[in-house]
């Protein structure tokens, strides 16, 4: 069927800020989709609130609206643009939901906007539990039976009908407390009884248990002609029970015979046909490992995280093709963009095995509940490709950047058998490490299989790794053993450590003996057709397929998995760098391992090597390609950290030199350099022992900011106020993070934080903008609300910042991008907090709002084209005073149980949203709304304020009061506010049992719209209450502000939307 000609203008909905469960994959999908639609000649209008993405570049769509993804704002775009059609199925759950809401609003019908891709009916049938169930029954596909019961007898009746095992889930209990698995009637009676008691509504869901079933996924596509294909199937190493986003996954399926495979394939195709989806769809199935019995677990009627993974795993660009299917093209009319010789209507054949590992944020949140279950907790993922399981798996492990280079964790090696089993039973993010340790310790496979239900296939392969380890231990420096170890994916660093060698020497030993990998192509067809796609992975095989050209080449290192502190922003910069290199006539080669991102789309670079970002894996590419050099400054800290060892191997780092990187990263050199440039920084010193730290702290005076050196992204950074706190910090936090690294003790300056991103060409400096943070210093810049242009600081301060920024750029001899964080104290003294010799989190934000193509300019500087040669005048880019831009952080607290939501020096946000308008209040409003905060004109606010902040809070409370907001407060705060003339609802404390609603009840029951909670710096007795207040807010989706600065910004917005009620009498005061 040819493409539709009756529609011309399409509104595409993006997925908004990055949160756990909805990450960079939608940037990849969205950008592909927009380009794909434009290729077909459609006019594309995009709405997305996430400034950090490639998708919101003006080049991606005809018009890009970075606006909140709410009905209100989407309607405004529709009024203005009058699109013919709307496409939401490429914007994740957010996109689908917005389409549904817009439809319900009636605007789509009113303006005749047609829904493309997945229609409403399909969305409802896939998303609504009951409709889905009845659809599955209609087409005869099994779903686990379930029933809501109020008595034990009802449960027993259900069991008689459906059989055991069953799972009991009490309704409305935190984290499923009181539930469990029942294998027989006695167990069911017991568990159900306690479950009913635990449930506040005396209600349990009884469901057939499929825990321990194999979890298998199919990525399917369908066109309007009803052609349907499977792009990829995947098998989770972790059986049903762990969210697939958190599971270790392999593709294709490994343990299924063709019969099982075809059975599940048929089911998947039947489902996409029944839903009549035009585009991609993900079907998750549970297969009984001991029979052909299976159940459909879930269907995502849209592109998803899994489809991004499948696209990278097979080379088949699902989102790109989905967009074309949405406008009526048939799969048999679209050329397979990888081979360019075959059609999109076929099923990719893989001749390698892909492994995906999830990247968890638990290094940032050591106190989080690490148990893995049905709620996804990973922030990102990595993928690796190999020609055998071990190779693929071990490459994946070292891609994680979790300080492991092998499936081995030192901590676990010390565990007893019981401890290991306990760990394995707990099922946390380290389970696979514990399982391997168990096997390494010589314990039986059967126990593990029984506990985890992991298939013996995987356990056997893990055992094969263990036996190779033994071979390694027994044959130090044996070349033939080395050859074997490399074939099975062992890392140089791991082998070198065990052979007591330097990694550098091991690399050379391999090189001398010809133990080097070759590169194989990902071509969708297992070599059957000629393919022109430059997408490669390494393997210790015979024939190399990556042909080296004689062009000038540059290698760009990507930023690896998305994690807190290193998000999609770095991928944005990487992609722009690569595009610029290509425009400048260089062959741009990307090395990266993140399947979710745009940079690993094979059409972005001249060559893509999908490899771990470690010295050896990068060196292999460099040894083959012999590039002019490597660019590390766009790949975040991941790439910067490799600079050292690459230089050791004789590689040229293009742009800012290793020396300059060290100047910025080494504490002492940094201090000396700032001193030389006569730029002040907060007073501070380095301590190794507790005593030293106390001496320093007392010398410079509390409060002090403490953190381990060489630890990034604000990890384990804390503000301490007295000797006791410092002792605790030294005893606990430090031990956990860095065993013997020195601790930095700095003066904590209370003041305004500002930030610049700048570009230097070695001689001159160009500063696109100065950003001002709403929250005072002490809150990580990534978690602060950021405003451009500056609203509060005076011109003189700004000039100082620009001056310092310029001098630093010149003094450090940076070439390319760098980022500086400043603090301004009450006397308007400017201090430099930190200098990052690389692209930063704010580059996409600043590039978009100033219109300065920062990564492009920086890349050209790296290539030797000066700022002036690029037609720019060094100095400060003129500010646009007509509009205010606000970047607000977005958190994923609801998904991470036990994580304290209080903001501090350690970054906690996962994403960001942009709001822009003609004044600060409007821009703030949009940014807050876009970040998921609901801002009603009337409502109530709950305050629990520590003594130090009561005076400041009073002003805020009064302002809430004046616009008609109800005020709730805990006793102490309430009394203070009442004494100051406000009417306050008193909330009982958490454990107070006087019949009144406790503060937690008030939050749970939704009596308040906002919570303002500040922590006492001195008194720890209230810390548990505070924690509960913050957690309950997070879990009930009530915005909880832990900084009065944020609260202040919010009230400003509310005031601008509202009318104040002040009596004439008060006005005179």
């Amino acid at each position, binding site marked *: 069927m040819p493409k539709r000609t009756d529609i011309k203008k399409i509104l595409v909905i993006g997925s908004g800020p990055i949160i756990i469960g909805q990450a960079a994959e939608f940037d990849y999908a969205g950008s592909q989709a927009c380009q794909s639609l434009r290729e077909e000649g459609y006019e594309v209008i995009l709405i997305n609130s996430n400034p950090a993405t490639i998708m919101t570049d003006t080049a991606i769509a005809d018009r890009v609206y970075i606006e909140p993804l709410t009905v209100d704002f989407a309607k405004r775009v529709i009024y203005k643009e009058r699109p013919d059609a709307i496409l939401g199925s490429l914007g994740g759950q957010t996109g689908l939901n917005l389409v549904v809401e817009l439809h319900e609003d009636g605007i789509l019908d009113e303006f005749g906007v047609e829904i493309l891709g997945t229609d409403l009916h399909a969305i409802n049938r896939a998303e609504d539990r009951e409709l889905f169930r009845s659809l599955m029954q209609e087409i005869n596909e099994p779903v686990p039976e379930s029933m809501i019961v109020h008595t034990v007898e009802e449960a027993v009746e259900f069991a008689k009908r459906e059989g055991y095992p069953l799972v009991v889930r009490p309704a409305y209990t935190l984290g499923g407390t009181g539930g469990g698995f029942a294998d027989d009637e006695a167990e069911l009676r017991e568990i159900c009884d306690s479950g009913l008691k635990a449930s506040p509504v005396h209600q349990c869901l009884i469901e057939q248990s499929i825990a321990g079933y194999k979890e298998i996924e199919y990525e399917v596509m369908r066109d309007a*002609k*009803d*052609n349907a*294909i*499977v792009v990829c199937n995947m098998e989770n190493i972790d059986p049903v029970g762990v969210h697939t986003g958190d599971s270790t996954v392999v593709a*294709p*399926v*490994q*343990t*299924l*015979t*063709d*019969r099982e*495979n*075809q059975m599940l*394939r*048929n089911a998947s195709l039947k489902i996409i046909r029944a839903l009549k989806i035009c585009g991609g769809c993900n079907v998750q199935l549970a297969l009984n*490992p*001991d*029979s052909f019995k299976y159940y459909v677990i879930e269907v995502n009627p849209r592109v998803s995280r899994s489809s991004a993974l499948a696209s990278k795993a097979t080379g088949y660009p699902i989102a790109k093709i989905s967009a074309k299917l949405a406008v009526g093209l048939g*799969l*048999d009319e679209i050329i397979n963009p990888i081979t360019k*010789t*075959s*059609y999109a*209507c*076929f*099923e*990719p*054949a*893989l*001749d*390698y*095995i892909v492994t995906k590992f999830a990247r968890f944020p638990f290094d940032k949140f050591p106190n989080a509940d690490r148990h893995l279950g049905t709620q996804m907790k990973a922030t990102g993922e990595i993928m690796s490709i190999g*020609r*055998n*399981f071990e190779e693929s798996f071990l490459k994946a492990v070292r891609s994680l950047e979790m300080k492991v280079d092998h499936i081995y964790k030192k901590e676990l090696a010390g565990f007893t058998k019981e401890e290991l089993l306990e760990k394995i039973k707990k099922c946390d993010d380290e389970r696979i490490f514990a399982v391997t340790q168990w096997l390494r310790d010589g314990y039986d496979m059967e126990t593990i299989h029984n506990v985890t239900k992991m*298939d*013996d*296939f995987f356990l*056997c392969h893990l055992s094969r790794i263990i036996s190779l380890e033994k071979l390694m231990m027994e044959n130090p420096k044996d070349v033939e053993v080395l050859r074997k170890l490399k074939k099975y994916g062992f890392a140089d660093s791991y082998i070198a450590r065990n052979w007591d060698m330097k990694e550098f020497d091991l690399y050379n030993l391999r090189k001398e003996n010809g133990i080097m990998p070759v590169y*194989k192509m990902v071509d969708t*067809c*297992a*070599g*059957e*057709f*000629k393919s022109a796609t430059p997408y490669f992975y390494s393997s210790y*095989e*015979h*024939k190399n*397929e990556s042909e080296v050209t004689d062009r000038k080449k540059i290698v760009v290192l990507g930023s690896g998995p998305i994690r807190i502190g290193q998000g999609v922003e770095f991928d944005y910069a990487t992609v722009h760098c690569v595009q610029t290199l290509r425009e400048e006539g260089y062959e741009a080669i990307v090395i990266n391992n993140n399947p979710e991102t745009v940079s690993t789309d094979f059409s972005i670079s001249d060559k893509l090597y999908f490899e771990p970002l470690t010295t050896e894996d990068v060196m292999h590419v460099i040894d083959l390609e012999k590039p002019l050099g490597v660019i590390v400054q766009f790949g975040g800290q991941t790439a910067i950290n490799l600079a050292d060892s690459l230089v050791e191997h004789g590689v040229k780092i293009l742009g800012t030199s290793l020396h300059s990187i060290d100047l910025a990263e080494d504490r002492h050199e940094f201090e000396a350099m700032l001193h030389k440039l006569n730029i002040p920084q907060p007073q501070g010193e380095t301590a190794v022992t507790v005593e030293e730290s106390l001496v320093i702290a007392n010398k410079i005076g509390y409060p002090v900011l403490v953190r381990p050196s060489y630890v990034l992204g604000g990890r384990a950074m804390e503000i301490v106020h007295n000797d006791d706190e410092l002792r605790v910090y030294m005893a606990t936090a430090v031990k956990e993070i860095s065993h013997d690294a020195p601790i930095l003790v700095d003066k904590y300056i209370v003041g305004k934080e500002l930030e610049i991103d700048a570009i230097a060409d070695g001689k001159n400096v160009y500063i696109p903008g100065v950003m001002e943070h709403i929250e005072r210093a002490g809150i990580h810049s990534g978690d602060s609300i950021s405003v451009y242009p500056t609203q509060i600081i005076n011109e003189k301060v700004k000039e100082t910042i620009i001056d310092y920024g310029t001098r630093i750029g010149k003094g450090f001899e940076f070439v390319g991008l760098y980022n500086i964080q400043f603090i301004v104290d009450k006397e308007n003294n400017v201090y430099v907090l930190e200098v990052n010799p690389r692209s930063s989190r704010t580059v996409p934000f600043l590039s978009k709002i100033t219109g300065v193509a920062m990564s492009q300019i920086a890349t050209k500087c790296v290539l030797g084209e000066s700022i002036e040669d690029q037609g720019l005048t060094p100095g400060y880019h003129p500010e646009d005073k007509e509009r205010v831009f606000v970047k607000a952080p977005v958190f994923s607290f609801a998904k991470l149980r036990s994580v304290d939501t209080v903001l501090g020096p350690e970054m906690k946000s996962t994403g960001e949203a942009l709001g822009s308008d003609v004044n600060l209040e409007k821009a703030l409003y949009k940014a807050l709304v876009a970040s998921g905060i609901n801002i009603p004109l009337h409502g109530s606010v709950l305050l629990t304020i520590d003594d130090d902040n009561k005076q400041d809070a009073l002003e805020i409370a009064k302002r809430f009061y004046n616009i008609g907001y109800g005020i709730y407060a805990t006793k102490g705060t309430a009394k203070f506010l009442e004494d100051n003339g406000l009417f306050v609802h008193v909330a009982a404390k958490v454990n107070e049992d006087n019949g009144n609603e406790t503060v937690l009840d008030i939050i749970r029951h939704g009596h308040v719209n906002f919570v303002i909670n500040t922590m006492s710096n001195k008194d720890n007795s209230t810390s548990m209450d505070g924690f509960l207040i913050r957690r309950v807010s997070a879990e009930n989706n009530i915005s909880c502000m832990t900084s009065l600065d944020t609260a202040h910004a919010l009230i400003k917005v509310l005031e601008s939307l509202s009318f104040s009620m002040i009596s004439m009498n008060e006005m005179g005061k």
Partner: protein
Amino acid sequence: MERLLILEDGSVYRGTAFGSDNFQIGELVFNTSMTGYQEILTDNSYCGQIVMMTYPLIGNYGINRDDNESMIPCVFGFVVKDYCEYPSNFRCSETLDDFLKRENIPGIYDIDTREITMKIRNVGTMKAVMANVDADVDVVVAGLKAADFLHDQVARVSTNKVFPIPNRGKKVVLMDFGAKLGIVRELSKRGCDLVIVPYDTPASTILSYRPDGVMLSNGPGDPTDVKVAIETIKELIPQTVVFGICLGHQLISLACGAKTYKLKFGHRGANHPVVNLSTGKVEITSQNHGFAVDIDSLKDTRLEMTHQALNDKSCEGVRHKDYPCFAVQYHPEASAGPEDSRYLFDQFIELMEENKNA
């Protein structure tokens, strides 16, 4: 133990031995299916061929008693990248290695199968043989060059006597050129009362069973080698309903005056898109053929093309304009592979029904 795979062009690949050491010269072909190695190994269409799987991890789920496509497998060798010694599946009854040894099939693993695949893609299928590491390669290569492809595979794999698989439905005579059990399964599932006959059974004998239809099975090798059957089919077409699969499709075409030719490296895999020309819809099909029907040659016949490969546009199905006779080049019985095309067996049943009424 090390083992060699030696190709006609003189290239030698060193790998690890498994299976038996019953080395035979065969045509080296690759199959891109990611599951279904058991079905492929036991598919008699591979008689005389050494099969190489492009998917590298093979043996993962072992071998079970159910998924065989013939009683006596007759591939000449099996080539894989990474053999899995410890299979895991609830139906697994033995390892792949044990199976190969028992069936006297030599195997080799731990070689760069992708490199060989691309070689075959570029120069076409080649003769090859496995050998011990101490073999004189020059002698082996000379032997390979001198060897001819087999011409008697169908005779080797066809049943040598008539036998029934009784049922109460349509009476179908299945001409066995090396029939996959999947075809038998599909017909039996539809209640067909089967009589299975050797490939060289005369038309008169076949018609003496008074069948509602005749099914021409898949089979190995060059269709022009099976002259006797071509004559038989010529006689059958005007007299009964005829449905051909794979070799059966080629034989029908030859019987109707069309020509066949050898493909460079064939179609072997489970992901081949085929367009049904009457509906315009695409089926993902399981394929295993080294020869194809020449589309140009159809114009002088009473056949019309009904199915066509989406990628290389080769002929994937024909229908007789005058008689109830149709055929497809691919495998609607799947096993291994997608089951998108099973409707063709229903069509066969319907056609027999219509023809009975007519």
